[in-house]
């Protein structure tokens, strides 16, 4: 399908240290960007044996949560403008978060403005329920997504 790697030599960043949560027995812990980030930072890149965190595709700041409305918005930055793996990354994020939040949360996944050549069509594709589930029916794509989510290569 591809003629070699799309981005053969990505810039790898250091992993940030995990924040240890302090127990506070009296107040409720609201869902915060860090919690979501902790879930998704270890997803492996479809191309390289590095996590999305290491490739700086995601950061804690790129996630916003509105607990009252139950909305989560994740904006990620593909490593290069014409990355064809961007939809796979989006699918991985969606698939991963599906297990992690109650159904009343709505997850929006977008690429960062100006970071991708087909920004608009990618955003549309990633937030279209029908197309997402259709994509996950595709055994080839499914396998790719599963590899990214459950990989132990990191």
């Amino acid at each position: 399908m591809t003629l070699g790697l799309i981005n053969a030599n990505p810039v790898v960043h250091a992993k940030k240290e995990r924040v240890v949560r302090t127990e506070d027995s009296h107040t409720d812990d609201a869902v915060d960007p860090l919690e979501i980030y902790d879930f998704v930072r270890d997803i492996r890149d479809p191309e390289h044996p590095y996590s999305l965190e290491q490739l700086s595709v995601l950061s804690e700041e790129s996630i916003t949560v509105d607990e009252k409305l139950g909305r989560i918005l994740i904006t990620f930055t593909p490593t290069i403008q014409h990355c064809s793996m961007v939809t796979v990354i989006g699918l991985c994020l969606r698939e991963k978060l599906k297990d992690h939040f109650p159904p009343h949360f709505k997850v929006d996944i977008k690429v960062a403005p100006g970071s991708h050549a087909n920004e608009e069509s990618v955003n549309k594709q990633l937030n279209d329920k029908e197309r997402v589930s259709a994509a996950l029916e595709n055994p080839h794509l499914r396998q790719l997504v599963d590899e990214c989510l459950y990989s132990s290569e990191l």
Partner: protein
Amino acid sequence: MADPTQWVKHVELYVNSSSTAAQQEASVDAIANLLKNDLLTLEALVREMEMYLTTTDSIIRSRGILLLAELLTQLRSKRLNDASIESLIGFFTERLADWKALRGAIVGCLSLLRRKSHVGVVTDDKVKAVVQSYLQNLQVQSLGQHDRKLCFQLMECLLDRYPAAVRDLGDNLIYGICEAIDGERDPQCLMLSFRIVEILAGLFPGPSGPLADFAGDLFGILGCYFPIHFTHPKEEDVDVKREELSRALMLTYASTPLFAPFSIPLLLEKLSSSLPLTKVESFKYLSYCTSKYGVDRMAEHFETLWSSVKDATYVSPQTNLSTEVGFMSEMGFQDSDIMKQAFVLLQELVQQSNGSFISLILDDEDIKIFMNSLNQYEDFDNIPIDIRQRLHAVGRIISVCVNTSIASCNKVFESFFPLLMTYLGLSVAEPHENSCLAEDYNPPGRLNFGALYLCVEVLSACRYLVGSDELTPIPDFANQTWCVMLHNVSKSLATVFVSLLRSNVAENSQNAYICYGVKGLQNLAMFPGSLLAVSKSTYDSILLKLMSVVTSDINKTFLWTLAMNALVEIGSFLDKCPDSERLSSYESIVVEKIFSLISSDDLTMPVSLKLQAAFEIGATGINFMLRVVEGLDEAISATLSAVYAHGNRKSVEPTIKLLEYYSNKVLPWFHKSGGSEEIPLNFALSIWDKIENNRSFNLDSLENELLDATMMAMKQAVGSCSEGSQEKIINKALGVLLSSNCLEWMKSISGNTQSEVEGLQQIHKLDSFAIRDEWITSLIASIVIALCPQTYIQNGKFILQFFITTLLNGHVPSAQALGSLVNKLPLKITGTPLSKNLCLDEAVDMIFHSCIWTSYNGSTYERGSSEIDLSSLRLCSLSPESDKIHATIGLAWIGKGLLMRGHEKVKDITMTLLNCMISDGDRGSLPNSKHPSLVCNDEDLHHQLMKSAADAFHIIMSDSESCLNKRYHATIRPLYKQRFSNTVMPILSTLMLKYDSPSIRSMLCRAIAYVVSDTPLTAILSEAKKLIPLLLDCLSMMVEDITNKEIIYSVLLVISGILVDKNGQDAVAENAHSIVNQLIELTTYPHMMVIRETAVQCLVAVSELPHTRIYPLRTQVLRAMLKALDDPKWVVRQEAVRCRQAWASIASRSLHF
């Protein structure tokens, strides 16, 4: 004589190559036993075996020879005559040429050569023959690993045991050994071959001996092994460690100076390797070789050695900035292994070289330039990191030189000390020249940090030199150059250091100055007085300064801690090397100051800091501690008087702190250091004195914390006393009790039966049990709680009666004291039975038959009936329910005491408690109609009574901090919890089946939960099948009441313990459905987060159960987890995600259901 047919079959079995190893071993043992018991002679054996030993079939021959050799190995401690030894060794020597049957020959030689002299040994001639045959016939390197090992063992044995015989062989021997070890690679064989060379070197020590010619060749073989490095880290050779092998090689290198011309260049060359391990090893080998070869051999390499040491430490130092230690040591640098080894080498060289090496260091241009350039880096902050590293390295080099020997110390002082002092603005020439430094001297501008650092390093190295024990006879330090120099400047140095502490700038760089200032003072103060280096006045002023920091600079935490540590160090140094003059200074300046500090109620210094300072200083020596404790005692006594007599509320807080410190720190310290029991005894007695002397207490009853702290201290004090002192304390306490008002109301309720009801009323009137009486009662209870079992209690019956009375007043410590009493009382009184003495049975009788529990309404109490008739108490007309609650609590503690010593009466108590819990059922039938007005109130009280009966099981099963534990000398039978749970659980479960009333059932559940949660898990696992339904019942019963959350949690922990265990899983499989239902209910438990968390974790554990059991539950769990994902707490959500994935993966990865 044994019949040949008997043992020949063993020989055949051994020789037969198809028999197993175990069979062969057994046959060797069998024949060896015959030989050992003289049932068979060696001659007969050999004659019979002739065919096996000489046959042309090499396999059988080798087995035969090996059998003979093995037999000889077993006979190593049996005496053999010379003739047989001679012929046998001759045989084996000859056989060494037979390469097809070699192993037996080697083993045979080895076992004969290893014989001790009193059982017959091989003669020197024969030994020589063995060696010759060895050298002639054995091609060691062409053999297999095991045979090589045997060959090396044989050679080692020859060299080790028969040096005289083998020495004559000279060149031949050395050549043969070279040939044998050349190219060896197996670690085990290498260990042996290194050892062989080492012994060989010992055989030919002379420089003109045969070894001299071969040294080059031999080292050529050895040289290629350095450095030892395993390429396959953890495979077959786990038995020989790299370190062992490396050490063996090092011993070999250093075994003879003849190797020096070859080894030193090799090691020096390896120093330039880029592998850190190689560098470390090279330095290690070099320092060992230096100590073995002697200075003459090394002298020619001194310059190279110095430059390599300098290279490793000064030019390119490899230090890590350690983050944790901060400025406390070495400016925050930690030496790498290479540097550590380099310094070891340096020390070795300085020590060996007798002055020539040290001049090399002192004349080194780089070091000189560095010392002269110190002026450039005055301010600590402006020193770049690499210069700091160099400074550290130079400091280390100088201190190594200083602490190695007195001569080198003198030299260092001569060349560097004046310079350092000039940097600090001092002169070493004469003491009076520095006298211009006034007390409040302030350094001009910034002090030269480099000089300060080096100066402190030099001082501590000097101290190390003085303190080292190796210098015997103790040299006359006082006349040494360095000592004179130090004497000249010590006073002004101290002034400079003191001036550093005074600066009140709180910036970071200041910390380094402060740190080294304190360190310098500490070092100065730790020179022994006999040295005259530091005068008494200087010493005193140092202590005064440090002390003033401790008393006044409490806000500067860093400085305060440093000064405190310095004082502690100085104190413990004095404790180690006592010096009367210094000791008296320390006592008068430090200890007395601390003493006055604690005993004064000056509030400028917080009490906790005062106490910390007092304890740390005290802990340096027993005498100091005694003095400090004296101060503490005074302080406690003063504040207690203030509290008792004047009701001074301000003193309450400090008193509590003092008492806590006393019980948490001071008493354990004395206990640990094996100090006298005077301290706790006096402390306890003085508290009783205080109470005795203050007839009226001006206290609010609210000051419970103070009472608690006093009780705690009292328990600790009594607990650490011996029996005799305990008796003194209890007698004193009894005296106070008898003279107090307590007795009056007690008399009113004990005694004759007619006044009992009246007495009961009295108790309620005396609800406000005067405060002083409460103190007395509580403190006596604390004493009784902490008594040893052996302590004789005078007037025991009275005390027992007293506690029973106070117990009914709701006084819990009394209940605990009763429990402790029955736990520790002797079974029988030995000696003359005094009427007032108490033994266990009597005490139990007294408790059980005491008027409190028996009926008031005239129903006859049957003697001998095993149950305590608690129910009759309920019939008493005057609202006695609250009393019964108190009585149940009392029963619980008494029951615990009895249970822990394994007394059978605990059964009666259990039954009473059970009856109490189920008494609800027959309640309606009782003639209660007399007091209809009380019924409603009664109902509530009765519920409380049932609850307290259920809670009693908690008291019985759980460990208590406040009494009945190891610290307070309780008698504890092993496995008592298990035993209790085994007897009670069946009863409780049958009761559960029998009763339907929800209130009773909830009480039973409570009891079950308590018992189960404190039973060891192993005991529960065996019963898991029966217990699980019960526990689930408990959980469903208890979720309704918020107050039950702790119990729910502990039951949940038990369930999770069962679920995680392998055996437990088998047991719960059939209850999976109900377990999951209950757990799901708990995942939404609103009152406690950990319950939800644990419930979700338990659900994860359930997912490990057999697939068929849990598959149907899958959708249910997943649905529940969906809710848990929305949990307000982050931890629960996290667990929920895990759980969801675990359950989803049972079928497929999909979460759809």
